[in-house]
Structure formats: structure tokens, C-alpha cells
């Protein structure tokens, strides 16, 4: 069982509790403790926010018992929803716009019969959230990436450094570094110049 700590951030009316396995750098900004309300991870350092990173109002970290999220240096998160049962990493200097869903698991089986079992379980549970034990596939967002509003990044996807994902895209396949993709499902649009000295 992970202990809780009291914290109060810029947008909080009063101090609130959050799990103590959330590691926030002193220079990082978090709008409200509420964004950690669905963190159930039992791992040490379940959520880490690196130097200068920013999590604004409306973001939600919905993190299962074995999930882990890392937010890189100066990453700017407007209000993404993380659905994480394994691992989601966001690279440094990456921007993620509002209502973007980053998910490493569907949390229900693909086969209808398995899904029916899970929904029967939820119907009789107190917690009332789905969370079947289905394989999760880590999501990796590189450095200097820009993800437009209301995008969905599906389980197992890697988005390369410097890429741009157009608004409302659904990213079902890996995105090459320094490219622009857009659409539903997202498709290659063009290449971006890789600046000198960038990894």
C-alpha cells in the first residue's frame, strides 16, 4: 500500500492527498493534485516529472497497479489523459495539447467473450472502472514532439524525436523522427529538417 502525502498546487483551493510515489522536480509545475486522483500504481516513482515540466488543468493520470509514466524536461502538457498499465514516456521539450489520449492498454480483451466477463465483473464491483488483465504495450513519445489537440495515441506506438502529429489524429503505427503525420488513422505528410546538434 502506497502512503499518501498532502500537497497543494497553484490551482488547488486547499491541500489534497496524493500517493507519495509521485516524484515532482522542484522546478516542475502541476496545476492541481486532482490530476493524480486515479494513480493506483504500486511501483516506486510511478509518475516522475522532470525539471521545468508543466502539467496544466484538465490532465489526468489514470495509472494501474503496474503502470509508470515519465515526463521529460520542459515538457508542456496541456490536458492529456494518460491511461497507463505498463509504461508511457514523454520526452524532453515535447508539447501535448488538450484532450489527447495516450493509452498503453485497451483495458478490455479484443475478443467479445472476454470483454463480456470483464463488464460483468465491473457491474458488481465497488470501483466501477474497467481494468482487465490484458497485455499492455508501452507508448514512447520522443523529444521535441508536438501532438495536436484531441489526438489518440494507441498502445505500442513510438513517436520519434521532433515529429508533429496533426490535431484529432489517431496514431496507430510508429511515427518516424522528424516527420509530420496527420489523419485518422495518421499518415505521413512530410519530413522536417533535423536541426544541427539535435540527437
Amino acid at each position, binding site marked *: 500500500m502506497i502512503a499518501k502525502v498532502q500537497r497543494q498546487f497553484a490551482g488547488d483551493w486547499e491541500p489534497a492527498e496524493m500517493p507519495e510515489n509521485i516524484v515532482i522536480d522542484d522546478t516542475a509545475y502541476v496545476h492541481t493534485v486532482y490530476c493524480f486522483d486515479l494513480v493506483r500504481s504500486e511501483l516506486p516513482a510511478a509518475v516522475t516529472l522532470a525539471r521545468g515540466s508543466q502539467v496544466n488543468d484538465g490532465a489526468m493520470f489514470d495509472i494501474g497497479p503496474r503502470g509508470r509514466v515519465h515526463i521529460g524536461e520542459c515538457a508542456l502538457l496541456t490536458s492529456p*489523459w494518460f491511461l497507463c498499465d505498463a509504461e508511457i514516456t514523454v520526452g524532453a521539450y515535447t508539447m501535448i495539447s488538450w*484532450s489527447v*489520449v495516450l*493509452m498503453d492498454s*485497451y483495458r*478490455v480483451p*479484443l*475478443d*467479445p*467473450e472476454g*470483454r*463480456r466477463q470483464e*463488464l*460483468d465483473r*465491473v*457491474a*458488481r464491483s465497488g470501483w*466501477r472502472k*474497467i481494468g482487465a488483465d490484458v497485455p499492455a504495450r508501452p507508448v514512447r513519445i520522443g523529444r521535441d514532439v508536438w501532438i495536436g489537440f*484531441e*489526438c*489518440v495515441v*494507441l498502445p505500442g506506438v513510438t513517436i520519434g524525436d521532433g515529429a508533429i502529429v496533426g490535431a*484529432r*489524429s*489517431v496514431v*496507430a503505427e510508429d511515427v518516424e523522427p522528424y516527420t509530420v503525420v496527420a*489523419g*485518422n*488513422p495518421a499518415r505521413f505528410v512530410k519530413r522536417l529538417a533535423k536541426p544541427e546538434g539535435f540527437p
Partner: protein
Amino acid sequence: MPDHIPQPGRWASGELPANVVLGEDSLITGPKAFARFRSTREPALVIGRGCTLDGAHFAINPAGQVTIGDACAFYGSVLLCELEIRIGHHVYLGWNTTLSDSDFHPTEVAERHADVLACSTLGEGLARRPYPSRPIVIGNDVYIGHNATVLKGVTIGDGAFIEPGAMVSKDVPPRARVIGNPAKVIEMIPSPTPPPS
């Protein structure tokens, strides 16, 4: 769970409208669930047992009727209903999914112009113009992912899997997995193999 004692269905934020039938063990949350509920049908909304309707919006117009089966789970879903939305058992709707069985305005320009005027603050006494609506029918065991949209007239077959963000404007066959805008079939989910006899 053998020792489960069924509880009456409830809305966490208040009294249900009189023409809503809510099954045992079903839970509706969200203060705005019925903010746009205007149906006069008897009943207007029938929900089965063991449903979790977390942050749902039932925007149902006067003639609209919505039926939802047992053990469904909706999270932050919006149901816009002019005519009829029929949903089976064990259906999952992810965050921010929208089902709309109507366009709510005509497409033809002059008709639409007259309709907008009737809707405006200057439209008192003017009649709305007719607009197309067709029922939505969703089978059993359907998954509809986050941010997906289902439009008027669509029938989704049993066991279908609608990927997050999909825009579903045409029928989806049973056990099909669809993705995209417009949604296209990418896979048929195999039926379970019967055990050897």
C-alpha cells in the same frame, strides 16, 4: 460473486425523471446527466441491470427513446437522441464518445437558413424545419473507444470493436474491428473455437 446483494439503481446527483427505468445495480453519475433530457415518451430511457454510466449525458428530444441493456459501462459519453438509440448488453463506451441519431438541422441551404432563423432569438413563433434522423442500433458486446463518434442510421453488429477516435457513418458487421475517419474494417475477430467433443 455468490453473496452479492442487488441494490436499487440510482443517479448519484438526484431524483431520476419519472419516465426513466433504471435496473438493479445500475449507477448514473454526473450532475448534468439529465440537463438536456426533454423526452416525453413513456418510458423515455430504459437501462438494464449492472450498468455503470459515469458522467453520461442523455440529451433526448421530446420524441426520443433510448434503451440500454445489462452490464454496460459508459464513461463520459454523450447520447444525442431525436428518434431512437438502442444499445445491447455488455457494451463499453470510452471517454468522450458521442452517439447522434440525427443531424438536428437540414442540409439543404434554404431550409437550413429558415431553421437557423427559427432557432435564433428572433425566431419566436417560427416553425423549425424538418431534418434527417435515423435510429442507431448497437448490438451486444460492442467496444467503442475514446473520442469515437457514431452517426445516425448506423447499426453495429454484436462483438464489434470500434477503435478510439473512429467516425462511424456506415454499418459495422458483427465481430469487425474498425478504425479511422471514415471508419473502415481492418480485421474480423475470430469466433471462439468450440471445445473438441
